[in-house]
């Protein structure tokens, strides 16, 4: 099973708080899924190229022309907190 420290490390990377009671169940559930996933380790895939995109797309670039964007007040309208003309967030070091 995945160690407690490892769960906490991954949670830090994911910017996800976990309460003490949530750590052990998370370790158990992740381990069960990872054990199932481990089956792909049995396949011989050394000579196989990875697929990241299934359909060939070429020339997806469009001309780089300026165009209107969302007005500032519309972009800010759904924010939990704003200050004058920007998003308001707490200080990185309180």
């Amino acid at each position: 099973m995945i160690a407690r420290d490892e769960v906490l490390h991954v949670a830090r990377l994911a910017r996800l708080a976990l309460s003490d009671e949530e750590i052990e169940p998370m370790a158990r559930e992740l381990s069960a899924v990872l054990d199932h996933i481990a089956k792909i380790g049995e396949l011989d895939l050394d000579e196989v190229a990875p697929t990241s995109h299934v359909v060939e797309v070429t020339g997806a670039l469009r001309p780089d022309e300026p165009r209107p964007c969302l007005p500032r007040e519309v972009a800010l309208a759904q924010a939990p907190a704003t200050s004058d003309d920007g998003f308001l967030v707490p200080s990185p070091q309180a």
Partner: protein
Amino acid sequence: MSATDILELTASAAAAEIAAGSLSAAELFDVYQERAAADRAAGDHGLNCFTWVAESAPEAVVADKTAGNGARPLAGVPLAVKDLFCTEGVPSQSGSRILEGYLPPYTASAVSRLSAAGASLLAKTNQDEFAMGSSNENSAYGPVRNPWDRSRVPGGSSGGSAAAVAAGLAPWALGTDTGGSIRQPAALCGIVGLKPTYGAVSRYGMIAFASSLDQAGPLTRDVGDAALLLREMVGRDERDATSLQFPHPIELPTAERLDGVTFGVPEELTGEGIEAGVLESFHAALDRARDLGAQVREVHLAHAPHALSAYYVIAPAEASSNLARFDGVRYGYRAEEPRDLLDMYTRTRHDGFGAEVRRRIMLGTYALSSGYYDAYYGRAQRVRTKISEDFRTAFAAVDFILTPTAPTVAFGLGEKTGDPLSMYLSDYCTVPMSLAGIPAISIPCGLSRGLPVGLQVAGSAFSENRLLDVAHALEGALAFDGSPARV
């Protein structure tokens, strides 16, 4: 026309009535609006299909009683749209608490296209949070119930869309499919669901789950409706660089026979793990295909049994990246009284996301983390290549592949929530096609224990026209009766 008569109409038939002047788009809208609003008002006593229902018909529909609606391809016929499609000024929450009350400043391309073709927005449908789930039990807005049996799930993640169409609360609906999220709920609710070729429909404005897999598609009462809705959705959109110009127009299906068509049945997806009643219904459907003149032969998709493993690396990995944007800064929920910036991020995400979403973010972050990337993500992408190769080989020998859509009929609410892995197995037959990016449709093929069974037909990339034709012929022969669900 009476409300009862109107409810009997497929969306295509309703559009034809409007075009002929025998039904007004406003009248049609009102019949469905009343039913959808009643379901929403009923709360837990209803099916809980919707997260938002329009209060009245859009002005364009009302103003345009005579020729105008009928002149447009979708004739003002109301459409239910999965919550995760952004709709300007209308709540778009992707089934999540973290987006509760979110009103997007723009509309998803798929929805805009359908509106331009004459669809009117009836409602937003309930779904598993961020489309992660196979039962619709992961919604922050409560589970959806299956209209065939209220104690059972409708499937997921497009569970609200599927249940609404099956129950006659919407003429048709828009869903999305990442690993089976259109096809599996369509199967469990006894309706038609199509996942198009990856890239056929723009993803712009769809709240992302796994970008290399997500595809929008129709959930409808019959194959003809699916073709009509798809026809108005496809096409290149410069705001989605992975979208493609569909190589030819989508046509409405007409085939009644299957002479000269060869179906392949993969042993790997039609044996172990599939419920006996589902297999029985599946084999009866194969007999109907033979009756229509089709050849049925065995094919092999040797890597299909590994598809689920690859999927549960790739999809969570992409989700962990896509969902990084939900941080309490620009929109949605923010935790109360944060100590500092990091505390705001971590508590907002803990409190805003549900358990399954947190689990998948953790899984994806783990799989992408330093030291594990090659063992998980790298290997999963190589498995994906093998799965595509298997399909290519199969399609050199047969025209289409047939499988059951889901391993079981609709299961009980709460039956699988305690065991994520058993829930993930619901997607066993649908995930391989998602990884290969090929189109697949689920059509109802019968009942087992009084509950619908889905037949999945999969074809090669961009074979939608032939796929719809074949599904149309099968649908005619199977003669499934969906009316018991339209309460």
